[in-house]
């Protein structure tokens, strides 16, 4: 090495005392840094690395879970939709059935009413017929009595008798109606 102890002020001279002190200083710093500082820092760095990796894993797991729950939810929703559609279908059928039933009932009722009305009309007609027949009989006998009571010579007289009879009849009818009113 460039050790020149002879020269008093030579900068290229190595002072072995300083050399030794320098070595001691380096050793002290090295042991401190290697034993305490750097391993601690490295450990924390590794731990953080692990934590971040673990965090990512946790996040992935949570995401998978959420996906599963979403899937379940979606299935349930679909099921609900399906059930709703079924219910709707059923309701429609029921409605149709109810309408058909009601319509049938209504028809039956209508038919019954019509029949009753017809029966009533028939009965009225029968009654009127019976009454009319009675009246026509008495009127005929009455008319016949009048005709016989008059002289039945000429047809004009006969006609007059008939006309008068009918007038009377009409008048009596109208008076009867007026009475009724």
């Amino acid at each position, binding site marked *: 090495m*460039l050790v*020149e102890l002879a020269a008093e002020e*030579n*900068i*290229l001279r190595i002072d072995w005392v300083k050399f030794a002190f320098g070595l001691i200083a380096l050793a002290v710093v090295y042991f401190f840094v290697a034993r305490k500082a750097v391993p601690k820092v490295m450990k924390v760095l590794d731990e953080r690395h692990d934590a971040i990796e673990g965090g990512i894993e946790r996040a992935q797991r949570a995401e998978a879970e959420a996906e599963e729950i979403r899937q379940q939810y979606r299935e349930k929703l679909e099921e609900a939709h399906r059930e709703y559609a079924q219910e709707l279908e059923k309701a429609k059928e029921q409605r149709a059935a109810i309408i058909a039933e009601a319509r049938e009932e209504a028809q039956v009722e209508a038919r019954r009413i019509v029949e009753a009305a017809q029966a009533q009309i028939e009965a009225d007609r029968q009654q009127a017929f019976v009454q009319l027949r009675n009246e026509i009989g008495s009127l005929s006998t009455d008319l016949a009595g009048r005709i016989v009571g008059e002289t039945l010579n000429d047809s004009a007289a006969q006609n007059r008798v008939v006309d008068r009879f009918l007038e009377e009849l009409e008048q009596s009818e109208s008076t009867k109606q007026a009475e009724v009113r």
Partner: protein
Amino acid sequence: MDIAAIEGNLNSIGYGISVIGAGIGVGIVFGLGMQAIARQPEARGPLQTNIFLGFALIEALAILGFVLAFAI
């Protein structure tokens, strides 16, 4: 004052001359090294290693000049 007379140590001038070559060399090493890294940034690691090896070798010459300036 006599301008022509040179006082002091001639070794310093010798050192100055010896450093010219090393200066140019170090410039070339780092310049071309930068160019190489710019062309292939992915090869940065080995390039950097070799740049500094070449730099150390070239600067050794300048440092030898420095030593000789003081030692002789």
